[in-house]
């Protein structure tokens, strides 16, 4: 058995590099659709009668791109959202949730440029144990709703 006991100073270079690359590559803002707090505990809230009043939670910088050029009939297009680890870390703190996984699970979708997308999968990259970038696989929402964001 062996372990790496070498000294590794956490200096946040991966975070700064990721943020600057995201900004330089069309960095924009995405809005997670988060449940309102306090939540609706009524029967009507669980039966689809009450409006859920999702609140937009901004994440920035992010880069947004289509994952493939070809389209399949009847299948919504897939996109990839690359999100800054520092933005997610700040959002986790602001929402007071235990982890980024939980944050993405709680989100009812992501609004980007007033379009709604559904989160299909989440992966991440880390450096020295700190996640500096998250990759979200998104699918275009079939609803076609125009989403309002706080910037509008």
């Amino acid at each position: 058995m062996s372990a790496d006991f070498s000294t590794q100073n956490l200096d946040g270079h991966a975070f700064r590099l990721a943020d600057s690359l995201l900004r330089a590559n069309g960095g924009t803002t995405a809005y997670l659709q988060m449940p309102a707090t306090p939540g609706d505990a009524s029967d009507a809230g669980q039966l689809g009668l009450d409006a859920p009043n999702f609140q937009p939670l901004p994440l920035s910088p992010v880069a947004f791109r289509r994952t493939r050029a070809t389209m399949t009939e009847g299948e919504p297009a897939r996109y990839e959202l690359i999100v800054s680890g520092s933005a997610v870390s700040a959002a986790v703190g602001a929402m007071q949730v235990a982890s980024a996984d939980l944050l993405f699970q709680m989100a009812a979708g992501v609004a980007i440029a007033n379009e709604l997308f559904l989160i299909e999968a989440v992966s991440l990259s880390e450096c020295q144990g700190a996640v500096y970038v998250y990759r979200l696989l998104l699918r275009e929402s079939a609803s076609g709703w125009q989403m309002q964001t706080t910037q509008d």
Partner: protein
Amino acid sequence: MQNAKDTFYISLRSRLATVNPERTMTLRGVVRPGILVEEAEAPAAQLPLDAFVLRWTKFATDEQLPSILAHMTCEIHYATAGTQNNAGLDRGRALEEMDDELLQMLCPSSTVKMNYTQTPAAQMGTNIFWSQAVFAPENTTRERVGRVATVEVFAFQEQGEQ
């Protein structure tokens, strides 16, 4: 027939809170019994673990009776990965526990139909009733084991009811 669907869900939710008060989940910022109606929640790529998910599928009517009898199929999906303490090796036992809870929730197999669009909910004039659950074979995907139970739910359409 929305009243019948609403009544079925609320009835099972209340019974689950009695059968196993510890089976809870946090959804949209609220801690509630671990059961939900799929079409009344935000879409998710994967169904939650350790919770019952109601999915309404078929719908048919029998119009040969004095009142129209609606006949709806409800699929109840549930899955588990076991517990962290047992490193998931108890997932078979955990699934069996959910099977047992579901059987208890479905018994007795009728309840008074309610109208939840009003506050407080109003009692209606007929009952809804349902068949015994038909359990599908266990479905295993990596550490996740799950099952689908299918229940036929019946309700009479009352005067003025949509």
